[in-house]
């Protein structure tokens, strides 16, 4: 064999082994940063952007703004962590409580995070023209909390569910109970999941920052003070240079936190992982750092979702089991089986819907009670102004844009996933680029898209078309990463023995893609799709409404317009609630009808542990 080739591959492999990045990746990361800086410099030199950055009265405030934003994020995260641990432990430790807590959690996380925004603003800011600054700060923290809370909670539940039965039995046998059990068994078991889901939570938090710090409410933008406000305000003034400058600082902070906090924590998490006693991998083929990294990324995104859906059980099967009385004995027998413990009974789901609707009614009551209005009155006002037909129409408009964006995202991510699986060289190039792309909160890009796609077309007949186009692009930025990382993770984790068998039996080219890669990615495509649609619904609210003269019909723009109705506060409130309920109902319906059904089918496409 050619000695040069082997020595080259040895050197490459050593790079991975040391855990340092190969030069090529550092080069790419450098290139991306240089490209962004280049854009800024061009803007600065050609358009005199430096002037606008200097003239921007907020620029001297940037360090303070960074502290504000970080402080807000940290407080909200602390709250989210406390919530996740208590809710998660309660759910996982108490069988009966889980019947209600689990579906309730599912409903809450189905409400698009940005949908909470107008409600929280309305509750904390009231309807006065000048907002109470303290209320505004509380509102922003609560909003970030609503974005952060759900995934760590699922992480805690998944972590506790993953404690192997023998460990539970051993700790029981050695008298580990109560607080000691919690500290010595539960918390360490939860730790890895908690780290991964916390990274996700911070991602959702960052996503919200550019919007909630500068949100038009009661007709005027509410300025909370922070990096998000800097970016949003700059682009509202069509000041690209400042917007880019703010964006670079924001991404720099996100990147620094990733390196300083999450990387070390993630490395520690390995210690707490339970070894799986799966069949040994016989081959000594070294795995590349890229695929390991991607696999871990996939694990942390997928595991909580998967564990959650595992515990779901269809109403239909349940009903069938009750009807077939002869099988009753069999059914109760199976219920004793540990895996069945967290299955959700019908009453639990019903109760959780009732609780949710109760909370919604309570929220509405809270809003309108100070003006001594009744819910009945509110409903009459709503019925007088908005028809159900109108709401359904708006939902369908939004859905059509979401479907378009989803199909585009699915198409390109699947192609990228296949390319990455087929070629190590491609994966070395693409993965770091995706990594950086994904760390930019999509909402921070919104203003730029608006400046490029919308502003030049104002007062032209093309505005409608470009607005729809911009809206779909914005949805895409909110959807694509979930799909991409899930798919890349899946195609990279096809077990070695399967890959070898396909090679040995010469399953290659198109056949390999069709028969192995796509089926192997199927469960990941589903989980990625669920998350992508979650992201899409979030993006919907900001993607449909840019300003009173530039918006497309849909639930999102309806929601924003509702929060800006000046003369009828009651109508504002009920319209917000109606839009939010319509959205949540649509999300839940799609989850039930499409994803959950497909997920049940996906079982066949999973590799045995």
């Amino acid at each position: 064999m050619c000695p040069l080739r082997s020595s080259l591959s040895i050197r490459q492999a050593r790079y991975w082994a040391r855990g340092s990045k190969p030069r090529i990746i550092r080069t790419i990361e450098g290139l991306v940063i240089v490209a962004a800086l280049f854009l800024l410099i061009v803007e600065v030199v050609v358009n005199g952007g430096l002037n606008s950055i200097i003239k921007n009265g907020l620029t001297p405030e940037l360090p303070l703004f960074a502290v504000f934003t970080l402080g807000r994020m940290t407080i909200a995260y602390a709250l989210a962590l406390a919530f996740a641990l208590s809710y998660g432990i309660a759910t996982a430790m108490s069988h009966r409580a889980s019947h209600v807590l689990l579906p309730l959690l599912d409903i809450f996380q189905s409400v698009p995070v940005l949908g909470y925004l107008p409600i929280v603003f309305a509750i904390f800011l009231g309807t006065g023209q000048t907002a109470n600054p303290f209320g505004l700060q509380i509102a922003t923290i609560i909003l970030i909390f609503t974005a952060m809370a759900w995934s760590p909670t699922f992480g805690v539940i998944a972590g506790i569910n993953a404690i192997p039965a023998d460990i539970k039995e051993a700790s029981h046998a050695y008298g580990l109970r109560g607080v000691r059990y919690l500290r010595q068994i539960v918390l360490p078991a939860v730790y890895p999941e908690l780290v991964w889901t916390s990274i996700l939570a911070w991602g959702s938090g960052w996503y919200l920052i550019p919007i909630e710090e500068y949100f038009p409410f009661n007709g005027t933008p509410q300025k909370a003070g922070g990096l998000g406000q800097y970016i949003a305000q700059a682009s509202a003034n069509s000041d690209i240079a400042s917007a880019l400058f703010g964006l670079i600082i924001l991404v720099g902070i996100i990147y620094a936190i990733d390196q300083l906090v999450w990387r070390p924590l993630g490395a520690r998490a390995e210690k707490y992982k339970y070894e799986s006693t799966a069949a040994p991998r016989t081959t000594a083929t070294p795995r590349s750092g890229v695929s390991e990294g991607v696999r871990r990324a996939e694990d942390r995104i997928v595991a909580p979702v998967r564990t959650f859906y595992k515990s779901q059980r269809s109403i239909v099967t349940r009903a069938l089991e009750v009807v077939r009385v002869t099988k009753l004995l069999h059914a109760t027998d199976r219920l004793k089986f540990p895996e069945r413990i967290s299955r959700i009974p019908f009453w639990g789901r019903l109760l959780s819907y009732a609780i949710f609707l109760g909370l919604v009614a309570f929220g509405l009551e809270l809003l309108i009670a100070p003006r001594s209005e009744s819910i009945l009155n509110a409903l009459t006002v709503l019925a007088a102004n908005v028809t159900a037909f109108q709401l359904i129409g708006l939902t369908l408009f939004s859905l059509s844009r979401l479907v378009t964006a989803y199909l585009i995202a699915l198409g390109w991510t699947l192609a990228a996933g296949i390319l990455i699986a087929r070629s190590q060289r491609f994966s070395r190039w693409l993965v770091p680029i995706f990594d950086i792309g994904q760390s930019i909160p999509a909402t921070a890009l919104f203003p730029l898209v608006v400046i490029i796609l919308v502003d030049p077309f104002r007062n032209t007949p093309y505005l409608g078309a470009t607005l729809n186009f911009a809206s779909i692009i914005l949805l895409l930025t909110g959807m694509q990463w979930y799909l991409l990382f899930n798919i890349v993770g899946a195609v990279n984790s096809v077990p070695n023995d399967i890959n070898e068998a396909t090679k040995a039996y010469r399953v290659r080219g198109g056949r390999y893609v069709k028969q192995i890669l796509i089926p192997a990615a199927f469960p990941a495509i589903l989980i990625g799709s669920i998350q992508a649609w979650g992201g899409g619904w979030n993006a919907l609210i900001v993607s449909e409404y840019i300003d009173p003269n530039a918006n497309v019909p849909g639930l999102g723009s309806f929601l924003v317009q509702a929060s800006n109705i000046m003369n009828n506060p009651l109508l504002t409130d009920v319209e917000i609630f109606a839009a939010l309920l319509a959205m949540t109902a649509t999300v839940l319906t799609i989850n039930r009808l499409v994803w959950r059904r497909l997920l049940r089918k996906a079982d066949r496409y999973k590799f045995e542990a």
Partner: protein
Amino acid sequence: MTQPNEPLPDIKNVSRPADPLLEIKDISKVYPGEGKSTTVFDDINFNVYKEFLCIVGPSGCGKSTLLRIIDGLDSPTTGQVLFHGQPVTAPSPKIGVIFQTFALIPWKTVLGNVEMALQATTVPKDEQVKIAKKYIQDVGLEGFETAYPKELSGGMKQRVGIARALALQPEVLLMDEPFSSLDALTAENLRQEVLEIWRDPVYATNCVVMVTHNVQEAVYMADRVIVLNHRPAKIVDDIQITLERPRNQRDPAMFDYSDRIISKIS
């Protein structure tokens, strides 16, 4: 290139000095590691004829890697493998492989898994189904054609693996610890059946290379045993097992062979 179809003897035995089917020449494998690279094995040389050959050695000596290199799934750091005098660079349809972990595609049925091996050949489509069904029947899985791997026991899964390999009617069958993921009883039954298939003149396969760490299994099944030692592994022994078939597990001569092999390994 192919061997003439000579009438098969009652017991397929070593037919040296005929041309070797496989020649393993000066093979070595080096894995790059932290700072220092690891030599898994070095200077491996042997020929394989029409015989049942077992490669035994302690874990980590690179037995499985050697088998993968023979199939063209992995490439050696130095040296080469010749199959009928031609260098092996990629898997060939004339060589079938059976994996320790079965390596069945979970979303394909038993039939689909067996057919998979035939799809890369020139066999016409309808013929493929017929052949696949025949071999599924031969390994005793008739009626399970539409079952998924998940629904099968370990022993049945490995039968699918065997049917998949045999369906190609390969000249050489490579087996990587085929019985070590099975329980003792199932493994014992399957060993018998593999030997019967190998000795049955109906099957074109008369060369088997099996990797195992189970010395008794090697002595029981093989015509010839190649022994590797600890890493960096070298061939420390090459023994002809001349016992009559069918063999008796309790034959004292078997223990003599086992003792000799074990003493070489440690």
